[in-house]
């Protein structure tokens, strides 16, 4: 599904990713762990193609196609979708209009929004005055309507209270694992995801197949998600560096 080879990325002239190699096989959900400032969000935003992130070396392959220099909307059209942690406000644009423009019209906006307790937000301006949990649900609503086959989720559980996290977790689960497949006409396509998590709490809701640890702009380690989470919780991220050094 997604292959990243020796990816180097600069933000404002400063190198943030220094040779990332990573793979998300078709049908797999991978999680990405890493301390603050390690480059997790940069990696997700670079995969989506946001302009602030300048690729200086390496390449990104998506569905076998080199998308390193493809524009954002093209990536979205061929099946990539992102849930942002801090999306911008857009004054004057109703959430309903954005959601309808994102979808291809075969999912019912009201019904989908209703299931996420977001119906009353459809008439509101996109993200304006939304709480942390409301932003997550708005992002999720947009993603559901967009129907991608590859999901980039940037800390889906951050800033959400305990009660909402359950709804959110279940909806993310449904999104990733329903058998309907993708809404896109791409033939045989199984849903995959790359999920950033700080706390690992989202692992209670998704069946993650693999985990990566990123630190200092490089992938330091990979393995089974639960094992890696336990190591991080017990020994911190420092161990991963050792683990990397042993491998070397």
């Amino acid at each position, binding site marked *: 599904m997604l292959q990243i080879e020796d990816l180097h990325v600069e933000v404002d002239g400063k190198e943030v990713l220094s040779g990332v190699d990573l793979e998300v096989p078709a049908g797999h959900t991978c999680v990405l762990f890493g301390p603050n400032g390690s480059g997790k969000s940069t990696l997700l935003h670079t995969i989506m193609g*946001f*302009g602030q992130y300048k690729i200086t070396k390496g390449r990104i392959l998506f569905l076998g196609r080199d998308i390193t220099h493809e524009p*954002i909307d093209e990536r979205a059209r061929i099946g990539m979708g992102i849930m942002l942690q801090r999306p911008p406000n*857009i*004054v004057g*644009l109703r959430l309903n209009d954005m959601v309808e423009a994102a979808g291809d019209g075969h999912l019912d906006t009201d019904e989908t929004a209703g299931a996420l307790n977001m119906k009353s937000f459809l008439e509101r*301006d996109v993200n304006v005055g939304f709480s942390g949990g409301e932003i997550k649900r708005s992002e999720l609503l947009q993603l559901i309507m967009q129907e991608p086959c590859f999901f980039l989720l940037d800390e889906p559980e951050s800033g959400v209270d305990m009660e909402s996290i359950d709804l959110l977790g279940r909806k993310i689960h449904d999104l990733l694992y329903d058998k309907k497949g993708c809404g896109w006409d791409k033939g045989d396509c199984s849903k995959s995801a790359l999920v950033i998590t700080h706390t690992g709490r989202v692992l209670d809701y998704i069946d993650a197949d693999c985990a990566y640890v990123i630190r200092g702009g490089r992938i330091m380690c990979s393995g089974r998600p639960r094992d890696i989470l336990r190591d991080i919780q017990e020994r911190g991220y420092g161990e991963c560096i050792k683990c990397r050094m042993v491998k070397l």
Partner: protein
Amino acid sequence: MPDGQALRRRAEEALNRKGAFGKDYDLDEFEAASRERDSYESLEEVSPEQKQTMMDVGVLPEAEDRSGSLVYMDNAVVHQSSADQGLELIPTLDAMDKYDWLSEYSWKAVPVDKDKYTARAYLENANGYFIRVKAGKKVKFPVQTCMMIDTEKRTQHTHNIIIVEEGASLDIITGCATSSHANESLHLGISEIYVHEGGSLNFSMIHNWGEKTGVRPRTGVELGKNASFVNNYVIMKPAGSVQSFPTCYLNGEGASAKFNSIAISHPGSEIDLGSQVVMNAPGTAAEILSRSITLGGEMIARGKLVGNAKDVRAHLECRSLIMSEEGRTLAIPELEAMYPDVEMTHEAAVGKIAREQVEYLMARGIDEDEAVGMIVRGFLEGSIRGLPESLRKEIDDAVNMANVGH
């Protein structure tokens, strides 16, 4: 009440007085447009081209869902119709003949010697529309008026008087335009608006001029106790030089006024828009909202709020997008207060469209041009509530046509 002689003298003295803002026009370069034109029983009779010109500014030739229509072409009233009891819609000069008391309203909200443009309109004995809604009457459908310049190198002058009596209410949609064969012309439009106690007026205007047309409207509004006035102004197409700065006086306690302007300045255009609200009575409220874009022309957004009484509340907001390396934007918000018990605020913001917003929409599979269009449309009309459908449509069409995504 100033007598005719005194007014004439003041006007003559003001004939060389330049306007406070905007480029100066030499009025001697323009001949007055004709006062004699064929009139039309029905607006369906006008030429297809004129029909289109009207429709482009929200004036419906079939007049469906309109309480009345009046069309002023060059300097002649060519059509008037009104079908509603309690609503009067006639040419201003006819109204002056009919009602002696009208001299108490005429040239009161707009001083005759404000500048050369008001003076010229007076000295030309400008005609226009007179609209009066009798006390208590709630007019169901909007009245539509159209001011059209149909001859090149001519001046159109109009003098409009609107009176909304106690407890009455009215919506007006007015469209001003030049036909395709009148570009380098001049429009001098005087509008005096009076809303009495408890009355309300919702006044929406679309301007659609030629690329060389000069436009100098002069508007004065007076509001009585608990009266309310909403002014929506939209200009989306290229225009030569438009300079407008209506002044609204809140003279009665509890009166409120709202001015919304939405403008695009194209390359070569000079759009200088503003409004001023003077709060002369306690408990009054005012809001001025301006949304503008420069695509390469000059865009000036003025706004002035004057707190001349206790317990007044007012807010002024100018936001402008710059979408071209050419052009210039100038936002001039002003607050003036004479009492401590006032709550008056303003904000102004000038900048380019946020790349982050565009990319956010693109990440949902929306292409760049469409994303920019959605953001620009939202910017222009989103924060202004209750905009009539015709104005909304004008904005949508203009954003599509201007191809702002490029």
